[in-house]
């Protein structure tokens, strides 16, 4: 039996409509549960106090500080390396075996499970370099995790800079590096910033890479040196939800932690998306 094309189109579009509705519904439900339950848990004291009574009461201050420390530490290492690598790949390197190998490596690192990065960080930074479980070991592990992300997004941003700008600058008798520094990088900056901010969101939310490289189950203080262990929001949430002292009794703390984590990550991502929209409009000019 052959259906009338118009009818089959209606059926197909209806099914597609159902499918996209399911996707939207799933996201909405997740956000709704976290936000509606987390909203009431969050208060000034929740954000600024230490956990008390073996984490069944009190706030999440050290976890917030820990997560921010990780963001700063990993970005300090990953941003310069990632951006400069992208500059070389886009502005200097010729197509060939080297470039092919680098891009293959980037693609594969981007798809490597985060728990594998955790193992690697444990073997290299914690044991081989002897940092022990620490802020620095975890930051470097996370940096390695996001370097491919930063290289990719920076490459995209550099690629979007019109070739004419480079030609014009070179034709004025300006060296390649000066051209990159004065023309190409400033023009690519919004894109690079967007990519970097998105990778901040990634760092803030990752748990598996820090499990064995420095996250502490409970540590009622902020880290005092880069060789200190630390608490972090995602790990704190995991601990409370699966192996805390009173799992069902501390649901409100869990929701609150999830909410704070979500706010940081989504807040950071929204800023990135807004920046990109703003500059896309401008560049179209």
């Amino acid at each position: 039996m052959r259906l009338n094309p118009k009818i089959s189109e209606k059926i197909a579009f209806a099914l597609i409509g159902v499918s996209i509705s399911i996707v939207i519904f799933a996201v909405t439900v997740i956000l709704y549960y976290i936000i509606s339950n987390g909203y009431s848990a969050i208060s000034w004291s929740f954000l600024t106090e230490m956990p008390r009574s073996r984490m069944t009461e009190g706030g999440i201050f050290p976890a917030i500080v820990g997560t921010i420390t990780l963001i700063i530490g990993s970005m300090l290492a990953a941003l310069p390396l990632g951006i400069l690598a992208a500059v070389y790949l886009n502005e200097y390197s010729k197509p060939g075996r080297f470039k092919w190998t680098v891009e293959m490596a980037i693609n594969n690192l981007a798809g490597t499970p985060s728990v594998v990065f955790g193992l690697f960080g444990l073997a290299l930074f914690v044991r081989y370099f002897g940092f022990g479980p620490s802020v620095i070991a975890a930051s470097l592990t996370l940096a390695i995790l996001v370097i491919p992300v930063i290289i990719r997004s920076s490459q995209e941003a550099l690629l979007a800079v019109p070739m004419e700008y480079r030609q014009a600058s070179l034709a004025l008798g300006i060296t390649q590096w000066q051209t990159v520094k004065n023309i190409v990088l400033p023009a690519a900056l919004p894109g690079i910033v967007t990519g970097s901010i998105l990778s901040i969101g990634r760092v803030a939310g990752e748990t598996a890479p820090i499990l064995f490289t420095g996250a502490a189950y409970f540590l009622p203080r902020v880290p005092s040196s880069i060789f200190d262990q630390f608490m972090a929001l995602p790990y704190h949430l995991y601990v409370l939800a699966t192996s805390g002292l009173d799992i069902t009794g501390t649901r409100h703390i869990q929701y609150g932690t999830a909410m704070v984590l979500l706010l940081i990550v989504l807040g950071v991502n929204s800023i990135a998306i807004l920046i990109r929209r703003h500059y896309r409009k401008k560049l179209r000019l």
Partner: protein
Amino acid sequence: MTEKLIKDSDIAIQINDLNLWYGTTHALKDISIDIPRNKVTSLIGPSGCGKSTFIRCLNRMNDLIRSCRIEGEVLVDGENIYDDNVDVVELRKRVGMVFQKPNPFPMSIADNISYGPRIHGEKDKKRLESITEEALSSAALWDEVSDRLSKSALDLSGGQQQRLCIARTLAVKPEIILFDEPCSALDPISTAKIEELIMDLKNEYTIVIVTHNMQQAARISDYTAYFLLGELIEYGDTEQIFENPQEKSTEDYITGRFG
């Protein structure tokens, strides 16, 4: 014939047996031509004839294309620019270029002009300002933009942008300026302004211009070279080329019988 056309003392660029390949495509074949000082020389020919490729050899912009291989000599003031010890950056300071599509940087008008001199080491603010004014005046743009120098160059019209690009090139004080179809993206009024400007500039600069517009070549140039399929077919005094071409294919092209 070419030898007689331009006296040795008047030659700004001398090209000897230039060959160029893109990968395996032989894009320029045995080009030999002398470009005279303080004159406008135009390069014409159907698209794909190699005229744009050729002009890009004169300040080594083809270096940017990876599969490109060049043989032969390009002498600027007697020095072969393809010698190993030649500094491309220095060369491009002396041989400036204006492109087909206006390509101002996404900066203010003033910054566009002062960009070159500043990077070449001019730090004095007063000097930079006077260089900017001078360059914009020479490009006949000063009167139109003097009250909005700090505005974005991207807000200018296409014709103004192209004159800005010319001014930007002038600010580096080159000896030779290459124009690669500078008017193809512009309206007739802007085109007329640029043509006028080019004719003024030849008093101080040697000018080579690629154009697909024969009337333009006839109007502004002193000498004309006709390219076809990567070969230089005919080169001579513009009047002679247009009124009394020696080669059949030149005549065909000029009379519009070509393709």
